[in-house]
């Protein structure tokens, strides 16, 4: 019925706190050009484009319309999404559905954000419900830290264990040409000594704020095989929500209901029963160190309450049984509208065996997640085998 779809090409910018050397469209062109150039393609060879961005962050309404000339999209078929941290992965899942259904053949996903050009802290408040949630918000960090306390209380995860995640990410980033925050000599002690932003979350536990863009090209069936020597076939593409308001999920991080729902569905579709053995690499959307520990649990990489022990055992390190975020993850690079697409891009690169500098050997199956808004999960599983 539906067609086999694969990620076949990836491009991203050099991510940084401020990309003042380029305008937003110029920055996006870097990612698009790297993606298409890698396969000798031009814009005219692509059927449709799915763009993801948080337009209120930079204050540009109809942002995809404004850039249509600069990106070469005038006259093209363009889809625009904006749904917070998840949006990048949502562009990929949208592309998957548009291609699998036979509606389009080749779709280019583009995620982008120039956080330096807007006021992210203020813009984050606009994520809250205007009537119910905004009056007493405390920015992304306060919200996140309150969730973290629930996880710490339930799991017993320690600050040291969280710090290990922070160290892993910044060291892995050193092997990724495009990553933003690279700290080759970072230590657990340094994380524990960094400024407390909101108890128990310290500065080095949190993701940075980045400018950057990413692009991933998806194609169908034999066309995908023609475009990439080793296409990253979509094995599962699942979206799951929680209830409407931020306080609805009783255990928040400790029991991320949408992530548990999404992984349960995706593992079933992909026939995965033992994810640590059957997946070869994961790129997860971890906005903070503690979140990655919680995600190990919600993704069933370890038993409930075992997130801390999982990092202690080194399972998620580059040389572990299931490396998590070889790219350096969100903790190293966070251009919001691109962040979740970077997860999909990295999973695609790993599956295609093209993750230069941070390739995990012999990847046959990779997992990517996006997380944002009110506990909204996007999850994809990619693999070398055409299903």
């Amino acid at each position, binding site marked *: *019925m*539906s067609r086999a779809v694969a990620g076949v090409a990836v491009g991203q910018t050099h991510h940084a706190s401020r990309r003042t050397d380029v*305008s937003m469209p110029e920055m996006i062109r870097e990612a698009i050009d790297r993606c298409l150039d890698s396969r000798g393609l031009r814009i005219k060879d692509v059927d449709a484009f799915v763009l993801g961005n*948080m*337009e*209120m*962050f930079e*204050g*540009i*309404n*109809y942002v*995809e*319309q*404004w*850039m*249509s*000339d600069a990106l070469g*999209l*005038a*006259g*093209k*078929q*363009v*889809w*625009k*999404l*904006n*749904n*917070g941290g998840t949006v990048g992965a*949502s562009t990929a*899942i*949208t592309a*998957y*559905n*548009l291609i*699998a*259904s*036979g*509606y389009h053949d080749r779709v280019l996903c583009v995620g982008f954000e120039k956080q330096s050009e807007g006021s992210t802290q203020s*813009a*984050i408040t*606009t*994520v809250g*419900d*205007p*009537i119910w949630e905004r009056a007493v918000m405390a920015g992304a960090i306060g919200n996140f830290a309150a969730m973290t306390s629930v996880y710490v209380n339930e799991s017993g995860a320690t600050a040291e264990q969280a710090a290990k995640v922070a160290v892993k990410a910044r060291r892995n980033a050193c092997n990724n040409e495009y990553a933003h925050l690279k700290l080759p000599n970072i230590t657990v002690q340094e994380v524990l000594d960094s400024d407390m932003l909101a108890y128990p979350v310290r500065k080095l536990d949190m993701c940075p704020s980045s400018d950057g863009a990413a692009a991933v090209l998806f194609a169908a069936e034999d066309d995908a095989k023609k475009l990439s020597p080793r296409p990253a076939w979509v094995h599962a593409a*699942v*979206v*799951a*929500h*929680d*209830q*409407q308001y931020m306080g609805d999920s009783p255990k928040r991080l400790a029991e991320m*209901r*949408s992530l548990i*729902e999404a992984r349960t569905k995706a593992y079933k579709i992909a026939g995965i029963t033992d994810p640590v053995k059957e997946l070869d690499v994961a790129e997860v959307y971890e906005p903070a160190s503690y979140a990655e520990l919680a995600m190990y649990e919600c993704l069933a990489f370890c038993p409930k309450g075992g997130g801390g022990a999982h990092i202690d055992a080194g399972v998620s390190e580059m040389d572990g049984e299931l490396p998590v975020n070889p790219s350096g993850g969100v903790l190293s690079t966070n251009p919001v509208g691109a962040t979740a697409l970077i997860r999909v891009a990295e999973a695609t690169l790993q599956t295609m065996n093209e993750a230069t500098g941070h390739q995990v050997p012999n990847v046959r199956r990779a997992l990517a997640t996006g997380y*944002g*808004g*009110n506990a*909204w999960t996007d999850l994809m599983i990619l693999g070398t085998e055409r299903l």
Partner: protein
Amino acid sequence: MSGDAFIVGFGETRHAPTRDDANTTELAYEAVSAALADAGVTLHDVTAVVSASLDFWEGRTISSMAVNEIAGATFKSESKISADSAQALAYATARLKTDGEGLIVVVTHCKESQADPHIIDLAGFDPYYHRALDPDETVIAGFQAAQLGYSLDERSRVVAAGRKNSPWLAPLSAADVAASPETSSPLHALERAPRMDGACAVILTDGATAKRLGRPAVRVAGSGTTTGSYWLDRDLTSANDLTVAFSRALESAGWSDAPDHVELTTPYAHQALLFARALGTGGVEAFEDGTISPAGGQFAGRPGVVAGLSGVIYAVKALQGTSNRALCHGTTGLLAQSHHVICLEGA
């Protein structure tokens, strides 16, 4: 019928200039619950949700978070399209075909009363070269109208024709439109469609489920979209992007010719005339005798963003129980920069 997508229910709010009696969540639920009831299903039967809304109009980043729970998306999938709702219906159709089966709620909402239209427009202009002039859409719409040269009489009559059968607003005469204050020469205030609050929803499902539900079904036969050039020195008298979107839609539906029933959705009267001419469907008389846009488009009181799907609902009502076809249109962006077209067929 396998692999096809059918509209088996629809619901629409009482659109009004302000709907202070309902916040966004409640307004959307009014449409969703009506659509579910119309299809004879409940929230339990929903397999996925596709929504359409714009963050700037909603004053909220990730505006769809207001509607996922009331549309049945808790622990399920909701996808939001930031464009006119006709494009959301196109995506829902693709999503249904990928899964092969399911029951999708397509919901769209906009409260034009809650934002300042000038600032929303301003935020859509190029931040480097245009914003310093503090423009809004009316200024460039005036440019466009001047270049097109339709008479005030023709433009006013298009508005009056659109308003004639409005379920939500009192009729307006062409003389009323012509007598309204000039906004940006040659435009008069009432040539711009009214700002409205409203929501609507349709239930989309596969052939087997449609048959089981036993409701009059209308097939989404195809769709097409085109994003145009932004720069305002583009040829504002051209409707090329619209005709491209229409031909893409016809091709995707496998139709060799366009049906008689065409619903156009534009915020300005002169654009309606431009697009009707480009489609070869006639001038102002065609609007007056209902040959084109019998629903009345945005002039009848359909809010922006909601307009495309609301036009679809009008066409679905007309197609139920027939084997007729219809084309429905929606636009996104300043001066109708993008076009979205849906092909419908009575089943």
